[in-house]
């Protein structure tokens, strides 16, 4: 008894052997039973000892057990199987997992498939190769070389100022290089080489990065190549706009895909094996090279100085305003459309100058191609009639104009009506009416012209002019009436928003929501055009000097182009060609003036001044009333040329900088700078799309905002509800409503549309501004446009009218699906109460939102993309809210039950 009075220490037990331990156990057990008896018999004093003894027994048992297991472990060491209770416990899932070698086992079939059809990478290897080997310097040297040569070339070119250039040439120190070839042919060859170099520079400067972007166009091209033209024409795409689908062949501009397809088949026919993907990637740079050449041709029609053409080609080749839409991999309609725009204008000027039906027909052909390629063809449709109209108002009606315009209009309209997407629009909608009106007006004028030539009476002429005016007025009135009565569709929304700038904001939120449809602030102009922007007015002014028919075109184009570019960022693209041409005219005039080796003699000019002063034309500009004398000093000449050289160099550097910094970062891969200046690539988009591709069913429907539709369709290859082709506003509003309503409302919508996954973009962790919370108000607005009773923009603001996401956000905001999906579980990243949205600089409430109808499926590395799975219906037929509440409340209820006093059951 006395022996076992003290507590047993586990540490002392380890040294004992098995028998001693069993003995001690038996002793302790007897002592315990004695104490139990004592407890019943008498109120003994040692009752507390029962506890100690029990603990001691346990200790002894533990030691015995541990020793036994240690022995067993020794025994089973190196045996094949281990008893279950000696194995590591871990979790049930881990215990049942396949062993690494089993897991990595691959079927022979799969192995073959992986080697032969590996997962595609999103960039083209040869082009990346080019990127590495054509860095900045090469592009610069390319860009600058033609400019310098252009200066040297042009001394001999201005025939009208220097009737005998050959005589002055020998005295020119700068000319020594170019004078190697005095003949015309050598100069022609040199010009071709320079043009080729410029085109090369234009292509090279677009190869900084390669990511194929509108994926939809690429998909369509693949379909075209795989299934042929007629199948493409009838293509019904059921993997977008679920469950509606999209009649793709009839709702797109097929020019781009057909161009790539034709190139593909042509190369195949030449036995050049090429992947359609490479053609798509390189189409835009190749066409920008062609654009440079078209700009050269167009400028040559404007001015006799051929250096202007070369400069225009150079500017066009490297102006960031155009590069922005034509970098390698930017596979969008604009890639070919700008070339067609410039080329159509060139053909139009050519037709107008020569009054030639052939050129007019070519112009119509090019116009038809343009209509097939880009919705922006309406720009041409309005600009050419306007040009004709201005010419008529200036009293410059001529048979040349008549032939050129009527040929273009008749053939061009017929050509444009061949495109199913355009169809009968050219005779039904208002934006095509000016062209039709001018067509009719020209017929009248031609008739009157004929009558006038037949009847030489002055009074009759006046009467006829009045008649013409009245007809025009009546025609206009008829147009207005027809429009208001509904025979002619009114101006389409997108077009109308150009004129009445407030219109889109009020009536068409979906147009206003696109960032490309925002107005342009001045830094954007300077960013995209640099010094061209202030040389532009100079060129336009110089056009006023001569003001032939083609110069009127430049003036009209400049005015309307700059207006549209000011209203919409995207239309900077249509302004860029005219800016390049005008600036090239300005620079070449400056160079022509200051690079001339001929210095005037003061005495001669003073003598001739008196006689020539009177000759100046009455209708020309005031500043050009005096004759050109020339520049006297060599200092002035060298300074001016030097300054222009510096400006051109700066321009090339600027373009390179802008291109490499701003326009070469593809939208799906974000590049950021770390504090130490190194580049950090954020690749969340591709990570998420890859996840979708590998972890979801082939036909799993993904709901996201429409901005990501094409990317999901292309990169993840999953059906989407809405995408960048925003043809159905109601469907987009449905998605907007699902995103902006509470879960109770959204869940039925998602079930009805068979949504499997919901994808949101969240920039709160990284401070990424292009995320869905920032776009959220547009979703609300678009949804409100269709369901004004159910979605209300006002309720997403706080009572003080602020758009907030922190604790003070409005209840509607906090309950909206978008908010919940964005911030779900976000708190867990931070210490309690310190969750911060870095984008909006807002401290989030301590308790994050809870989701009951969705579950988190995937969140990318930087939390930019979050994907949620829509839960299936509950197994027990409950709704998800109560199921979730039950799950959450389960433990709590049990606890209360335990604690509460037991009630006696009476019945």
């Amino acid at each position, binding site marked *: 008894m006395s022996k076992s009075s003290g507590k047993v220490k586990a540490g002392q037990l380890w040294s004992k052997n098995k028998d001693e331990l069993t003995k001690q156990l038996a002793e302790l057990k007897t002592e315990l039973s004695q104490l139990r008896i004592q407890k019943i018999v008498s109120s003994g004093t040692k009752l507390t000892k029962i506890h100690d003894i029990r603990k001691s027994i346990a200790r002894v048992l533990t030691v015995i057990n541990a020793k036994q297991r240690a022995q067993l472990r020794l025994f089973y060491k190196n045996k094949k199987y281990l008893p279950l209770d000696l194995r590591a416990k871990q979790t049930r899932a881990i215990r049942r997992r396949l062993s690494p070698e089993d897991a990595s086992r691959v079927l022979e079939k799969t192995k073959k498939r992986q080697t032969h059809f590996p997962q595609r990478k999103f960039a083209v290897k040869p082009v990346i190769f080019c990127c590495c080997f054509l860095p900045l310097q090469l592009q610069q040297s390319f860009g600058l070389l033609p400019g310098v040569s252009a200066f040297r070339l042009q001394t001999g070119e201005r025939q009208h100022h220097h009737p005998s250039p050959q005589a002055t040439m020998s005295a020119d120190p700068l000319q020594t290089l170019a004078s190697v070839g005095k003949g015309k042919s050598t100069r022609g060859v040199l010009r071709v080489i320079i043009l080729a170099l410029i085109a090369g520079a234009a292509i090279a400067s677009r190869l900084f990065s390669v990511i194929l972007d509108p994926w939809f166009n690429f998909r369509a091209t693949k379909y075209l190549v795989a299934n042929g033209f007629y199948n493409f024409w009838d293509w019904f795409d059921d993997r977008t706009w679920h469950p509606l689908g999209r009649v793709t062949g009839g709702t797109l501009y097929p020019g781009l895909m057909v161009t790539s397809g034709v190139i593909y088949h042509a190369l195949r026919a030449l036995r050049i094996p090429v992947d359609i993907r490479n053609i798509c990637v390189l189409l835009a740079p190749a066409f920008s090279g062609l654009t440079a050449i078209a700009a050269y041709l167009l400028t040559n029609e404007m001015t006799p100085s051929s250096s202007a053409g070369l400069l225009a080609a150079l500017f066009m080749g490297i102006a960031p305003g155009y590069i922005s839409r034509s970098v390698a991999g930017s596979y969008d309609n604009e890639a070919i459309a700008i070339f067609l725009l410039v080329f159509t204008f060139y053909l139009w000027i050519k037709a107008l100058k020569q009054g030639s039906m052939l050129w007019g027909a070519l112009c119509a052909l090019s116009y038809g191609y343009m209509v097939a390629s880009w919705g922006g063809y309406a720009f041409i449709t309005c600009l050419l009639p306007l040009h004709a109209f201005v010419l008529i108002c200036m009293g410059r009606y001529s048979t040349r104009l008549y032939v050129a315009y009527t040929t273009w209009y008749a053939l061009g309209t017929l050509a444009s009506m061949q495109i199913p997407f355009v169809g009968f629009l050219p005779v039904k909608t208002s934006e095509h009416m000016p062209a039709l009106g001018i067509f009719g007006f020209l017929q009248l004028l031609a008739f009157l012209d004929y009558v006038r030539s037949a009847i030489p009476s002055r009074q009759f002429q006046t009467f006829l002019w009045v008649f013409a005016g009245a007809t025009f007025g009546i025609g206009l009135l008829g147009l207005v009436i027809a429009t208001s009565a509904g025979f002619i569709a009114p101006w389409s929304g997108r077009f109308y928003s150009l004129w009445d700038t407030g219109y889109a904001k009020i009536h068409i939120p979906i147009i206003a929501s696109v960032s490309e449809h925002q107005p342009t602030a001045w830094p954007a102009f300077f960013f995209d055009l640099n010094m061209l922007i202030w040389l532009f007015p100079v060129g336009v002014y110089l056009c006023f000097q001569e003001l032939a028919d083609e110069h009127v075109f430049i003036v009209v184009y400049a005015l309307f182009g700059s207006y549209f570019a*000011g209203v919409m960022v995207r239309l900077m693209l249509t302004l860029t060609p005219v800016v390049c041409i005008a600036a090239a005219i300005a620079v070449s005039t400056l160079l022509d*003036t200051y690079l001339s080796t001929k210095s005037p003699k003061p005495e001669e000019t003073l003598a001739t001044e008196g006689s020539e002063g009177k000759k100046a034309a009455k209708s020309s500009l005031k500043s050009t009333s005096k004759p050109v004398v020339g520049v006297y000093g060599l200092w*002035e000449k060298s300074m001016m040329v030097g300054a222009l050289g510096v400006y051109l160099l700066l321009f090339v550097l600027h373009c390179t900088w802008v291109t490499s910094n701003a326009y070469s970062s593809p939208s799906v891969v974000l590049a950021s700078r770390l504090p130490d200046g190194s580049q950090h690539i954020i690749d969340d988009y591709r990570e998420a799309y890859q996840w979708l591709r590998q972890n979801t069913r082939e036909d799993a429907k993904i709901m996201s905002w429409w901005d990501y539709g094409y990317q999901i369709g292309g990169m993840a290859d999953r059906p989407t509800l809405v995408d960048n082709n925003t043809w159905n506003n109601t469907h987009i509003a449905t998605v907007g409503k699902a995103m902006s309503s509470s879960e109770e409302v959204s869940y039925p919508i998602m079930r009805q549309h068979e949504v499997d996954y919901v994808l949101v973009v969240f920039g709160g962790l990284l401070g990424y501004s292009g995320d869905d919370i920032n776009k959220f108000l547009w979703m609300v607005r678009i949804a409100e446009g269709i369901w*004004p009773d159910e979605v209300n923009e006002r309720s997403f603001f706080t*009572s003080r009218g602020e758009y907030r996401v922190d604790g003070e956000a409005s209840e509607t905001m906090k309950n909206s699906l978008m908010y919940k999906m964005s911030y779900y579980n976000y708190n867990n990243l931070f210490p309690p109460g310190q969750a911060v949205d870095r984008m909006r600089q807002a401290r989030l409430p301590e308790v994050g939102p809870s989701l009951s109808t969705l579950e988190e499926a995937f969140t990318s590395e930087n939390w930019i993309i979050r994907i949620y799975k829509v839960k299936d219906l509950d197994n027990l037929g409950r709704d998800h809210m109560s199921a979730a509440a039950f799950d959450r409340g389960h433990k709590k209820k049990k606890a209360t039950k335990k604690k509460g006093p037991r009630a006696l059951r009476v019945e």
Partner: protein
Amino acid sequence: MRVLSVFSLVLGGLSLAAAAKSKKSSEERFQLYHGKALSSSPVKLGDSSYRELTATPRDYAAAVLLTAMDSRYGCQLCREFQPEWELLARSWTGGDRKGESRVVFGTLDFNDGRDVFMSLGLQTAPVLFFFPPTVGPHAAASSEPLRYDFTGGAQAAEVVHHWISRHLPDVPHPPIKRPINWMRWISTFVILSGGLTASYVAWPYVLPIIQSRTVWAAVTLISILLFTSGHMFNQIRNVPYVAGDGRGGIAYFAPGFQNQYGLETQIVAALYGILALSSISLAVKVPRMSDPRYQGIAFFVWFGIMFVVYSLLLSIFRGKNPGYNFSLPPFM
């Protein structure tokens, strides 16, 4: 939450009022106020009549505008919306003289209904409440009044008409009849005929201006400069002309690449204009000067201006885009 509390206040007030004014039935009240509306719609309400009109139960609908027209309160929105509201009420009541749609339009000015404003806890005016019927065939599910938001500024009568119609299905919606604005037609006619006469008289003097190439060139260049310096952005976004820099001074240039002030665009347009003008002078005017000395002076003046202004422009642009690192002397 605040809105809810307002509603509960309204309801509380309504039930109290109903208890106090239970003498008149719903039908009597409607006849009373509809009769008033026939003579002048919207009905001008006071504290007590407001409570009477909006008391429950009611088998008619009431649309009440709570406004503050007194110039002391300086409510611009109230004054802008008032004519539209009166037009709506008049054409609705006029188009529905028998009261088939069973709507009463009323206006409660702050001066007449201070207590109502207080009891509703209203801080702002105007507020448009729509009280749907609580009994009868068109009774709404909840008797809470609907509040119209004036977030988008003063609305046209048609918009409010649409809103009211939406909450009143199955009853006639008399359309809005805008009175013919005789004044406007007459003034347009007078101005037009005056303009025609003036142009006829002044034609010989105007013609040379219209045909002058210099005038057209100037107009074209100025509009190009306006458009390329972001004037349309100002128009669309209603940007401020200048803003304070937070230290009591004036900030001429907005921070950030996507922002600009009105004055800023004018400065930029002026810089572009000066640059263009100097280039034009250098290209066109200077080589036409016959005196070598004057030519030299003119060249250096224009050349200097061009060089300095371009450098200034680059430095301004650097201010807008911190990552930009090209510059020219003297503004390095």
